[in-house]
């Protein structure tokens, strides 16, 4: 079920870049875990809706009233890199 191709795809979707050793270990873990989780198919869930932790609670919305935003300095206070009031990140496109 969890072959290298699936691992590679999941890794990419998860935004991770595992070392070969980590990848092997996690592949083994996931295979075992998912095998064990097959248990769930023993249960008949035909017509059973997904769980609602807050039964009957709907429309928990708010009025369109503004509140003070963070100052620019506060927004950027934890930024690893900033420039002229922006968060700075590496190039998005292009060859490395």
């Amino acid at each position, binding site marked *: 079920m969890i072959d290298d191709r699936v691992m590679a*795809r999941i890794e990419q*979707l998860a*935004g991770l870049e595992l070392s070969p050793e980590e990848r092997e270990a996690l592949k083994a873990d996931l295979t075992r875990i998912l095998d064990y989780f097959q248990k769930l198919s023993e249960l008949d869930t035909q017509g059973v809706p*997904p769980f609602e*932790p*807050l039964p009957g*609670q*709907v*429309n*928990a*919305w*708010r*009025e*369109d*009233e*503004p*509140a003070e*935003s*963070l*100052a*620019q300095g506060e*927004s*950027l206070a934890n930024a690893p890199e900033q*420039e*002229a*009031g*922006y*968060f*700075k*990140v*590496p*190039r*998005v*496109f292009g060859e490395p």
Partner: protein
Amino acid sequence: MDVIIGLEIHVQLATRTKLFCRCRADYFAAEPNTLTCPVCLGMPGALPVPNRKAVEYALRVAFALGSEVQPRSQFDRKNYFYPDLPKGYQITQRAVPLAVGGELVYLLDGEERRVRIRELHIEEDAGKLIHTPDGALVDMNRCGVPLVEIVTEPDLRAPREAREFLRALRTLLRHLGVSNADMEKGELRCDANLSLSQDGELGTKVEIKNLNSFRGVERALAKAAQAQAEPLSRGERVMQATYGWDETRGELLLQRQKEEAHDYRYFPEPDLVPLELSPEFLAQVKEGMPELPWARRDRFVSQYGLSARDAEVLLAEPTLADYFEQVAAGVGDGREAANWVLSEVLRYWREGPPVPAGELAELIRRVRAGRVSRTNAKQVLEEAAEGGRSLLELLESRALEQVSDEEELRRLAREAIAAHPQAAADFRAGKAQALGFLVGQVMRATRGRADAKKLSQILRELLTE
């Protein structure tokens, strides 16, 4: 070969605050990262709380399009990584959107066209990315601004249909008061998909993203259709692809070939509870809605006796339509008001009315009362519109009130006749144009204020005595 076009439109809703937090939503001219908070910055521990007004505005659109509102809908997470997406997911609606179905009717060459709507839903906007040579700059001000996404069925058959459809949609959105829908400001964004169908067989779809002007939409679609037509006519297959549009160069830029279906791993948003819209709530929203443009158009025709065409023009802008009605009320005559607004005021209209409705109404009243000549009125209007001065002030200062007093006119007429005996003689001798000359003289002397019609009559009388 038939061109098949569908559109995915994102409309920025003109609410005061963002969709899930209380930061102000009017980010357009703000300094970067000054309209942000832990929620829209995606900070750990922050939670979304939906803006009720955004739901109401989206509902207005649904009602106007005749879409079926889902009594119960939910929010979902759309998961992907991008620097302008702070949580690493967008909160949107997928499994159960706010409304499905409906249509927008628009005019093309005077003919009615219909485009069916597949669905519309609410979602949050992402931040802004500025690409620089050594990296990218991220501004989160726009992050979290409420959007309505409208997905059409592929009912459009030509690039210019798409353009006219978008124009009609923009007008509708403005009339609904939910968005200014200005494409240049990013308040209305459009992704288009196009395929060519040959012999009834639907070809491969290409997607064009990030179109931000009506003209751009038309040009890009035309280019895409052209680009596809060539290989197809040679019997070649077209690759499924996604393009961006370069407005300045007028070129399609290939972004992705053979689109790998993104796995967004949608699942219901656990930080939010479902929307359950009661019939009472929906009725309340409907009642609070401004008049729909087509209802207003019909009313202009029936209430004011306007032609459908004139009504249509006045309804291009809700502010114009409002203005017209204010003037009509002030004048007491819809057709007269429409006449003035369309032929004299419209040309000066920029962001809004060039002169206040009240002042225009007053001017028209004075013309109707014969106190000001039509010519002088138009002149003063131009001055007020271009120079920005008050119409009424100008009228007073120039003393442009017409001379229509009988006594006064007689006096002026006698003066003119006395000053130009030759002309008087000519007229008596049968030269009709000599009367015009004398009228002109009086007009000169009164700087155009004489009531021309009355003056002519009086001169004629005096000369034939």
